[in-house]
């Protein structure tokens, strides 16, 4: 509909501009005439010896600012169409003949002028009036041309020629003289042909004229154009034409005389009317839309001309109705009280109103954000969950010092488990070798960021899924670099157990132990991870030295036990991520034959399914806010900490306090209707502005919202000296600045009883109760595990009280 309207606007404007333009510039018209003669003579001299109607020539001249050469070349290409064009002027005359009948004729020009003025503001209308007029006219023609023209062009070129010949004859009789007369008399275009035809028409009954001159032409031409539009659904224009046709009958009756005589003509006329009337509205209401349509024709004159020529008849029709339609509109508006309208105006106004209503509706749709309503299935999620027969699922985080080979190890794991296909792997390998980092190919499976690949360092956590026969695993690959520990904390908060990767090569293990091997292990422990699998990686670089493995095993296990891991929850696997030894398959290296234990994958499968607080109120920390695609403009991802949710649920995000609707959700990459605690989900949201969503925010329900607080008391294990100082508070993705404002007491590790109140400083390794204040309110509630860091190192981890 909208398109239709826009085009109609174009038509109206044409009409207006024609009227307005012609009357003011008689001199120009004279000049035009001269040029027209030149062009015509040149055209005849030319190879196809085109017979172009004066009007068409003039149009071309207007287009090219009276540049004869250009217009000649331009016209030549359109010779076939020119013939039709000659007809069009005749039709236009007809329109004008009608105009006097209506009370409106005087007013329409005004309307045209005003419209022109109105649009003059727009930059594209800074075009000389001549040109404008042309542009306006053309859009009309093109459409009609497109409708009928395309089919014709395909197979009926010969018909066109025939049409042209017929038209020439007719013109010779009637049309040729009218244009001249029209120039002098009417406000219409300078072409004399038009005028004559007009007069003729006036003299005779309206119907007679069309019947004689146009009618014959139309009969010839019409069958071709009329049917093609309807037949051609592919092109947009035919579609537009269809509605017009529907309205035709009404118009016919109204027009009375002319309509009866020539049914074929009439249908087209109504179509033109309809087009015209919407254009008024559109031009008045939506200035921009009309502008482009005009501008386009000017840019692509050739197309327009073709269309015009082919559909000279159509052109005439629009004219008929276009003239009255603006008049009608104005008159109706002005004279409603008088009851002065003719039938045609009335019909037009009706169309206009309709158009208005449509427009208004359209505007409403635009301005008011659509509230998406998603129907909830009102599932009993817990029941569904119990019914479901999913494999047991486990999340594990891969931790360790930087360059221990975490990403590569996991890349290997994914490749071996078929979670990543060989082709992709080969692609990575090739690309990695191209930048001289061939050994990083496996890591690229997880290191998807361009920066990560360029630097060969994991920066942010990556999650990936793979399945074994018994378990669906979710890997959370954490960065090892100390600068990205916050990201690692986010990853660890999603984990059920941890895989600690250790670089067994000489020197690396030792430096790792001082570095993030230790920090990470402490962090995962303090975040509640019980089970840890130690992958002693890069064993190939030490020739699978058993003593090296045992040395590492001994040191690490002693450290882990002091960190709070139970002996039975610690297991060691010597492996090689690059070669894939002892990952999914046993090592075939003879040096490694001493190891008879489980492979890494077997070790992973022994993990106990962890239990989650399914029946608690919903809590989910947003891990990422992103645009999921065209369908899902706002998506968030994260792991459900507690509770459950389903599609259609209303959720509340804190601390913004905004509500959102779950449009759809994915669990582990699979679309699902519901999700429960422990699952990694992607929520596609609706009815919320992304500005209210940040990673680290918490999703909950408005019935049991998570409180936002600015200070809290926490019982922490100090890793470094604690004193009143500035710290960063971490909880999953949540990362806010704060400060320890008060050291309440140091506590006994076992009993938790206060040992010393108000200590000046808390020594590393002691448990203390401290008060932490933050500048901004953050969503935190007890019991939550938090990590305090300062200056890039972890100073304490503990439990909110």
């Amino acid at each position, binding site marked *: 509909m909208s398109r239709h309207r826009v085009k109609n606007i174009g038509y109206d404007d044409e009409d207006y501009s024609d009227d307005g333009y012609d009357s003011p510039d008689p001199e120009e018209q004279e000049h035009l005439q001269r040029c027209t003669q030149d062009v015509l003579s040149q055209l005849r001299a030319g190879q196809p010896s085109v017979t172009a109607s004066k009007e068409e020539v003039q149009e071309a001249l207007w287009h090219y600012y009276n540049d004869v050469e250009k217009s000649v070349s331009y016209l030549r290409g359109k010779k076939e169409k020119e013939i039709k064009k000659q007809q069009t002027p005749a039709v236009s005359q007809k329109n004008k003949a009608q105009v006097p009948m209506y009370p409106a004729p005087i007013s329409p020009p005004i309307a045209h002028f005003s419209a022109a003025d109105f649009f003059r503001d727009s930059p594209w209308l800074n075009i000389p009036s001549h040109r404008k007029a042309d542009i306006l006219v053309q859009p009309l023609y093109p459409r009609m041309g497109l409708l009928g023209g395309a089919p014709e062009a395909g197979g009926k070129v010969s018909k066109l020629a025939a049409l042209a010949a017929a038209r020439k004859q007719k013109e010779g009789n009637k049309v040729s003289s009218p244009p001249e007369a029209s120039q002098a008399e009417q406000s219409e275009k300078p072409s004399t042909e038009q005028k004559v035809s007009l007069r003729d028409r006036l003299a005779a009954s309206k119907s007679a004229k069309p019947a004689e001159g146009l009618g014959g032409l139309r009969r010839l031409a019409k069958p071709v154009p009329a049917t093609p539009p309807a037949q051609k659904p592919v092109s947009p224009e035919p579609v537009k034409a269809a509605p017009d046709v529907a309205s035709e009958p009404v118009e016919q009756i109204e027009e009375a005389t002319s309509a009866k005589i020539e049914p074929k003509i009439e249908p087209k006329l109504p179509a033109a009317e309809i087009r015209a009337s919407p254009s008024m509205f559109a031009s008045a209401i939506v200035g921009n839309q009309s502008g482009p349509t005009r501008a386009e024709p000017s840019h692509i004159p050739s197309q327009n001309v073709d269309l015009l020529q082919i559909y000279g008849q159509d052109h005439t029709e629009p004219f008929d109705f276009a003239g009255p339609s603006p008049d009608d509109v104005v008159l109706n508006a002005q004279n409603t009280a008088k009851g002065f309208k003719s039938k045609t105006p009335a019909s037009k106004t009706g169309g206009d109103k309709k158009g208005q209503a449509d427009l208004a509706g359209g505007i409403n749709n635009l301005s008011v954000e659509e509230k998406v309503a998603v129907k909830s299935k009102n599932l009993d999620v817990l029941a569904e969950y119990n019914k479901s027969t999913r494999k047991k699922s486990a999340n594990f985080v891969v931790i360790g010092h930087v360059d221990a080979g975490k990403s590569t190890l996991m890349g290997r794991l994914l490749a071996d488990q078929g979670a990543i296909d060989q082709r992709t792997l080969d692609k990575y390998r090739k690309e990695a070798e191209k930048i001289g980092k061939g050994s990083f190919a496996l890591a690229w499976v997880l290191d998807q960021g361009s920066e990560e690949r360029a630097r060969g360092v994991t920066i942010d956590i990556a999650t990936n899924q793979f399945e074994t026969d018994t378990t669906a695993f979710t890997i959370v690959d954490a960065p090892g670099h100390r600068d990205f520990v916050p990201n690692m904390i986010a990853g660890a908060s999603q984990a059920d157990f941890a895989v600690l990767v250790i670089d067994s090569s000489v020197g690396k293990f030792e430096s790792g132990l001082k570095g993030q091997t230790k920090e990470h292990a402490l962090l995962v422990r303090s975040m509640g991870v019980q089970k840890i699998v130690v992958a002693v990686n890069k064993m190939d670089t030490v020739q699978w030295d058993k003593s090296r493995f045992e040395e590492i095993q001994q040191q690490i296990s002693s450290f882990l036990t002091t960190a709070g891991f139970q002996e039975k929850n610690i297991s060691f696997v010597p492996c090689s991520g690059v070669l894939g030894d002892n990952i999914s398959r046993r090592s075939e290296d003879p040096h490694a034959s001493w190891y008879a234990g489980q492979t890494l994958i077997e070790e992973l499968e022994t993990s106990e399914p962890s239990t989650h607080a399914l029946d608690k109120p919903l809590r989910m920390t947003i891990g990422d806010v992103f645009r999921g695609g065209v369908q899902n403009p706002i998506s968030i991802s994260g792991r459900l900490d507690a509770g459950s949710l389903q599609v259609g649920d209303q959720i509340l995000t804190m601390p913004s306090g905004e509500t959102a609707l779950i449009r759809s959700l994915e669990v582990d990459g699979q679309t699902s209707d519901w999700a429960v605690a422990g699952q990694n989900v992607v929520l596609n949201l609706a009815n919320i502005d992304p500005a209210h969503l940040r990673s680290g925010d918490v999703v909950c329900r408005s019935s049991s919202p998570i409180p936002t607080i600015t200070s809290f008391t926490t019982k922490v294990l100090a890793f470094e*000296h604690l004193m009143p100082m500035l710290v960063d508070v971490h909880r999953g993705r949540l990362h806010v*600045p704060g400060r320890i404002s008060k050291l309440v007491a140091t506590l006994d590790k076992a009993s938790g009883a206060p040992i010393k109140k108000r200590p000046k400083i808390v020594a590393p390794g002691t448990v203390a109760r401290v008060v932490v204040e933050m500048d901004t309110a953050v969503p935190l509630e007890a019991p939550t595990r938090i990590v305090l860091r300062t200056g890039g190192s972890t100073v304490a981890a503990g439990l909110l009280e």
Partner: protein
Amino acid sequence: MRLVKNKIEHDGSGTVTLFPEEPEDMWHAYNLIRPGDLLRASAIRRVTTTQDTGSTSSARVHLNLEIRVKNLDFDPQSSQLHVSGQIVNETAHTKIGQFHTLDLELNRNFTLEKDVGSDGEGVGWDSIAVEMLKDAVDEGGKRRAEAVAVVMQEGLAHICFIGQFQTILKQKIEMSVPRKRQGGGDHDKGMGKFFKVTLETLLRQMEFNTSITSGSNNETVRPILLASPGFVATGFHKYIQTEASTTPALRRLLSSVVVVHSASGYTNSLSEVLQSPAVKTLLADTKYARETKLMDDFMDQLRKETNKATYGPREVESAVDQGAVGRGGGVLIVSNRLFRSQNIAERKRWVGLVDRVRDVEGGEVRILSSDHESGKRLEGLGGIAALLTFPVGDDDFDSDEDA
């Protein structure tokens, strides 16, 4: 700030006429002016007059008003100081006792009078005030060492202006940058957008002219410290470089950019930025660099648990009583917030302590600006701390605290 006239008497009373020249001078004024002082400055006051007929007319009149200060309101972002109080001088348009809020303006003299009162109930120009005055009056004219620090992390940037006495957080930029995802290129796009916004904001805050014509003027650009964990700052630096290829004016900026490491994108990590070797060479011996160093030393000492460092009002006073903050390494570190106290007795307490340490004990006194990063750390410790010459057991203080 220029000292126009100085008439401070020996007894601590007297007047000073000052001429503020730059925004930071307002901060000094904020520290100098205390409730109870007399402040004379030019003012614009809307005066409403009522005719006999009852009709009213109001007009704005320029006046020189003297007020007795009741309240100070300082806006560090825009460096504006509003001082409210009661008018004490009579003018044609005002009565004594009417309230007025003076907005101190740059490049306009103001006169500050402090009196000690007949019974010494006022504080007058005590040693701290005189010292602050000295700080405020820029004698050498070399107080210009300033830097702009952009502390950032993914999707978060703080643009801070580091001045001699204040660190002003000019703007915080927060954007949601999509994390890396499987097959998603949103992260890079998000970072590009984030850099763009950050650079635009930085240039706006610095009032940096990027037009082509600006290349001719050779105004010096302040050092710009880009700090972040990981590669964000490096990436931002690279982004400025690529931008500079299309915007030549940015090249002037590039020469003064220093990339340093910080632990996070929050202002907490400014101290780390200021302590980084690259910045130290750049801003050697500026006041805030010294202050940050001092606080680090103190923290180190505290960490060593040698009991040669203590903090908190009571603990420090007790240490001073024991003579531990004296010659040979005793340093008293005080936040200037303590001297801003409304309570005269409170101020006298701290001024007395400072005087005592400096004059009697022979220790060193360092007054840190509470508007600096180091000062904020000191605030966390109660606003006062001390490095001691000998260990002082802290058990006593515990009992003190509990009592």
